[in-house]
């Protein structure tokens, strides 16, 4: 184990820039566009629970189908596009090498967004597959595997070729994350569909749900955090040893816990207990990452006032800490008999997927958009509105769903009639819809600001974050380990 060192700078003169800013920019735009659709899908679905579905009698816009679109566009449309943007920005800087090919880059862009488009249309037509978070129609599944393999070629090329002896922590997560994406997808979408049935297939569904979040979204998200936070704070990560513990803990324990999504199902209890134990173990391990973040941040408290990207990363890390704490308890059978099948789980999912990883992506967009467009943010107040509306909306939603989940769980345990439960839930669901409107308003502020900035930024952006390297970027300089 050695400390990461600054990369050997390869300064071969070349016409092509090191970082493909056009690909970064277009992946951000695609991701934000899919997120817009996904957020409205979520809002509309919440209206169904208030018996106020605005588009009745249209089969392709049925609430059930809209719900599938909400989760799938978040996972594959928004998060994956944003992560690809992040990869095009970070991998060349960390390895000092270009990605495999520009043409391959646009092919991946077209392929992934084509896959998402096909999924979107397929779900509207009622072609879903019964795999949660992977409802992608069965005829799209092979394309997703091809898409994953293209991603391997594109980004493994610089990672394998780099002259760095010890990779920076971000690249550990990427190195494992790409192969995990492929394996997870194949396991979750092909085995239960074609090879095994019932009780043999159920655990794989649990593994898929969990691994898509744990072995694709989480590694990309943590890699992103480990790259941008030191740059934003202009100081190195607090502890290299802790980042090692965090990575290897995640790699070992995370894949073992999928069955905890089906506690109480006919899956053998030894498998259920192993999932519970490894979940509690991983929550202790991932706390190291949270500690690493906050210890790095310590001493730079003032940045919360001055830097919007840091605010996003800070709140995301705080939400992550809460998620970890929550996980370790909610996975026990004691909690499960109350909260399983309730809104609690929905609140938890929103806290992780939106409150942590989407927030970090917003932080990245806040940081990168001026660099991609060459203009400073047009409106500072829109940036603040975006942050507060989204953050308060998410927290309102999380608290509402957590409380309503507990109430629902205990009512259900006490054999209260379902009608009474539904009536009790209605006020909570109303609040949830309002928090959703708050989130969408915050997101609208971000999008408006992005558009205004791109079209008519008045002040040219001076890239201080990467300035020592920016002038010579065409000369192929990597910032290496921070």
């Amino acid at each position, binding site marked *: 184990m050695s400390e990461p060192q600054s990369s050997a700078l390869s300064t071969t003169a070349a016409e092509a820039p090191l970082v493909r800013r056009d690909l970064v920019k277009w992946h951000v735009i695609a991701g934000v566009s899919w997120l817009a659709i996904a957020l409205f899908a979520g809002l509309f679905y919440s209206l169904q629970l208030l018996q106020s579905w605005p588009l009745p009698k249209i089969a392709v816009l049925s609430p059930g189908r809209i719900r599938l679109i909400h989760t799938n566009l978040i996972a594959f449309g928004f998060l994956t596009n944003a992560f690809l943007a992040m990869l095009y920005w970070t991998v060349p800087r960390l390895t000092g090498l270009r990605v495999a090919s520009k043409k391959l880059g646009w092919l991946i862009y077209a392929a992934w967004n084509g896959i998402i488009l096909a999924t979107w249309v397929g779900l509207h037509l009622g072609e879903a*597959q019964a795999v949660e978070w992977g409802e992608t129609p069965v005829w799209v599944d092979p394309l997703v595997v091809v898409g994953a393999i293209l991603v391997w070629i594109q980004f493994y090329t610089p990672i394998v070729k780099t002259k760095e002896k010890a990779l920076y922590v971000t690249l*550990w997560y990427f190195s494992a994350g790409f192969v995990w994406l492929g394996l997870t997808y194949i396991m979750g979408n092909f085995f239960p569909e074609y090879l095994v*049935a*019932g009780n043999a297939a159920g655990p794989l569904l649990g*593994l898929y749900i969990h691994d898509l979040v744990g072995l694709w979204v989480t590694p990309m998200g943590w890699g992103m955090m480990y790259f941008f936070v030191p740059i934003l704070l202009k100081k190195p990560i607090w502890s290299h040893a802790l980042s090692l513990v965090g990575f290897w803990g995640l790699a070992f324990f995370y894949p073992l816990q999928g069955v905890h999504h089906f506690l109480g199902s006919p899956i053998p209890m030894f498998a259920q207990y192993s999932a519970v134990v490894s979940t509690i173990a991983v929550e202790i391990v991932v706390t190291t990452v949270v500690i690493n973040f906050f210890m790095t941040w310590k001493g730079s408290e003032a940045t919360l006032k001055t830097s919007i990207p840091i605010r996003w990363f800070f709140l995301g890390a705080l939400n992550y800490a809460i998620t970890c704490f929550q996980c370790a308890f909610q996975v026990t059978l004691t909690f499960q008999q109350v909260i399983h099948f309730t809104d609690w789980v929905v609140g938890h999912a929103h806290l992780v997927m939106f409150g942590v990883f989407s927030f970090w992506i917003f932080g990245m967009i806040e940081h990168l958009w001026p660099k991609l467009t060459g203009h400073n943010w047009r409106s500072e107040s829109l940036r603040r509105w975006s942050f507060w509306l989204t953050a308060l909306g998410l927290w309102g939603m999380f608290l509402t769903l957590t409380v309503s989940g507990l109430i629902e769980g205990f009512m*259900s345990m006490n054999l209260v009639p379902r009608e009474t439960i539904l009536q009790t839930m209605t006020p909570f669901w109303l609040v949830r819809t309002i928090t959703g409107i708050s989130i969408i308003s915050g997101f609208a502020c971000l999008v408006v600001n992005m558009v205004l900035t791109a079209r008519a930024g008045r002040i040219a952006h001076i890239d201080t974050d990467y300035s020592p390297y920016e002038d010579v970027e065409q000369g192929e300089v990597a910032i290496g380990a921070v």
Partner: protein
Amino acid sequence: MERFSFIFLVAGILFFVLAFAVSGWIPMLTVQHLEVRTVEQMAEQPPLEFAELKADYPEAFAKAYGDVSDSQAFADALRTGHKTYIGEACWHCHSQQIRPWGNDEARYGRKSFPEEYHNELNMPPLWGTRRIGPDLIRRGGKQSNDWHVAHFYNPPDVNPVSVMPSYPWFFEEDGLTPNKKGLSIIAYVQWLGSWIPTVDETIYEVPFIEETYPPAVLNRPSRPLDSEGTEGTDENPTDTPTEDGDDFWE
């Protein structure tokens, strides 16, 4: 531990395969002996509710399934209903598993067991992770076909607080006759749990309007239905509500 090859092989591949073995492969071994039944095997003897659908909606039934035997029609209905159940995301608000805790058994019947999932329609299983509506794994026969017809058309008509969406596209133009999707989803839901007598096991959610409706499993016809689908209906009390239903719709 910071080199690509080590991370790729150990974290990327080895740990993943290890976890697959522990959480996926070993549980598979415990159900290795179970046969995965095909839809055709399960459709050999259609439940009474399916014959009733045929008798109630003969034209729609013929249009949907064509001129085939009842078993073949039921197999077709199960497949179509299953696909509809997935495509409409029913499984995101209804679970299909009864847990051994949380008073699930009092509400829905005895806990789920592996054998009932080992068939083609549980590839993948539709256990679900959220219950906004009730669990459905033993729902078959608890409500009449007529109830389902009215309920699918607009659930709040039947249960004013229901947040279930309405499904007018399960019906013909007239809004009264279920089309192939409607017939099939009803056949699928009525089939759920038909392999186990559960109605009298539950203490709570037996709907009072169905008090006169005998448990489905006791009414299973003793021999395959003839082409009219009338076998067993003569001495069967379920015919009475059906006729009432006809009057109601007219």
